């Protein structure tokens, strides 16, 4: 009876595996008298340990489930099969009784599948891809844990956890064949959970890419949805010149929708960084703040002194040909303008400067202006353009 010295399976303790399997078999035989169980399974551990040590194939793969093993044992020993053993009190748990029917149905279905001709080929292929599933399963469960630990989104910890989960799951799948029913149930539960998680993880992964894109936009550049932009840079101030190329102050600008063209709204966050001076808005005669009167004046931070018109980038520009400086004669107000600008539509077309009187002369700060053109400013400012929403 010299036993060939087998290579033990990696990571599996044959004795422990044998003990576990034998215990599971005994549990399946629990309805029998103790002495019969002993006769049937006496020395089983030693034999199973020898079998387990022979190859790396786990006992469960070599022998099938403990339940099937026990049934075979019974039938070969000439004992009635378990289902017919009149010992319901042995399996008296409410849960056991409730699941008994379902389990039998599943067993019948499995038996039915096994009798199909394609079954062996299917099993063979399924076993080929099983390691891939072990990896996916582990990653999915780790993903769930990572979401709890690190919240949604990608993180280094989450990634490491994912890899660890996949590796652990692979090792468990490769080496660990528990025989005890609750341990098998645990693995079944893990698999079921992984299957349930799969669609969620797929959705999270695809939507997370979108988040990346969004985050990339908002973090790589300032919020382009606010302010005035030119060539990818935020415009903080505007320096207008008239047709003769003379600098202008207090020029109010609207865009083609009639909206005030404001480079700043006093919110510090939308100024370009390193701005040494705080820009201040102009104020209308009736005390309204205008951020679209250019050039915006600057106030030294914290000094609280009078705002100064910053120096223009150019003292003067070349005069334009064919365009005269001055007030646009008799503007034909666009419908939008007339609604916003004129409470009574009748006086709008009459004289342009009338409407402007309510508008904004006081923007002018001629004293600070480096150029001697208060008159220009005065003529320029008010009425040339439809007055903005003063109402």
């Amino acid at each position: 009876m010299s036993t060939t010295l087998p290579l033990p399976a990696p990571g599996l303790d044959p004795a422990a595996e044998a003990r576990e399997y034998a215990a599971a078999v005994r549990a399946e035989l629990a309805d029998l008298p103790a002495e019969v169980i002993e006769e049937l399974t006496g020395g089983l551990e030693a034999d199973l340990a020898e079998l387990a040590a022979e190859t790396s194939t786990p006992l469960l793969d070599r022998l099938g489930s403990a339940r099937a093993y026990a049934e075979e044992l019974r039938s070969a020993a000439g004992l009635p099969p378990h289902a017919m053993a009149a010992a319901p009190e042995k399996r008296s748990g409410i849960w056991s009784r409730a699941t008994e029917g379902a389990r039998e149905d599943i067993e019948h279905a499995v038996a039915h599948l096994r009798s199909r001709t394609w079954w062996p080929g299917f099993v063979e292929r399924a076993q080929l891809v099983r390691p891939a599933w072990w990896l996916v399963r582990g990653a999915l469960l780790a993903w769930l844990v990572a979401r709890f630990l690190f919240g949604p989104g990608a993180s280094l910890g989450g990634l490491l956890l994912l890899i660890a989960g996949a590796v652990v799951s692979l090792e468990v799948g490769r080496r660990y064949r528990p025989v005890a029913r609750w341990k098998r149930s645990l693995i079944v539960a893990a698999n079921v959970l992984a299957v349930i998680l799969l669609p969620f993880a797929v959705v999270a992964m695809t939507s997370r890419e979108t988040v990346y894109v969004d985050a990339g936009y908002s973090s790589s550049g300032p919020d382009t949805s606010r302010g005035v932009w030119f060539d990818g840079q935020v415009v903080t101030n505007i320096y207008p010149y008239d047709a003769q190329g003379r600098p202008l102050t207090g020029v109010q600008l609207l865009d083609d929708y009639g909206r005030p063209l404001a480079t700043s709204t006093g919110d510090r966050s939308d100024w370009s960084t390193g701005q040494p001076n705080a820009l201040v808005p102009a104020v209308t005669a009736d005390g309204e703040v205008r951020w679209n009167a250019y050039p915006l004046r600057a106030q030294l931070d914290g000094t609280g002194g009078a705002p100064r018109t910053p120096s223009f980038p150019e003292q003067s520009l070349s005069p334009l040909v064919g365009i005269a400086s001055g007030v646009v004669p008799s503007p034909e107000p666009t419908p939008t303008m007339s609604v916003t600008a004129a409470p009574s539509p009748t006086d709008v077309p009459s004289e342009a400067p009338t409407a402007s009187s309510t508008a904004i002369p006081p923007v002018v700060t001629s004293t600070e202006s480096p150029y001697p053109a208060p008159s220009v400013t005065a003529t320029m400012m008010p009425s040339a353009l439809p007055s903005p929403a003063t109402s």
Partner: protein
Amino acid sequence: MDTTQLLKGVLDAAVLAVVEDDDGYGYDVVRRLRSAGLEDVGDASVYGTLRRLYAAGALSSYVVPSEEGPHRKYYGINPRGRELLEAQRKSWRAFSETVDHLLAPEGDPR
């Protein structure tokens, strides 16, 4: 042909035969049967058969404690078992001759 069904019918005789000369423990018996050519024999079937033959009084059993690990349970044939084996040999011979004859190709003067 489903040999597992055939195997069931002869397993008693086969088990008795492999322990006829040498006592053996369960897995030992399984291995002897397999090396004799009955590769498809199920472990549990052999264990069950051993127990049944024991319960029928055809085998005796004894436990050999092991220094490390669990004890082994050995089975040995007893006079009742030898009688049974002899009877089964006879009936198998008769049965196999009959079937051989029945299955022999036509014209084969067997």
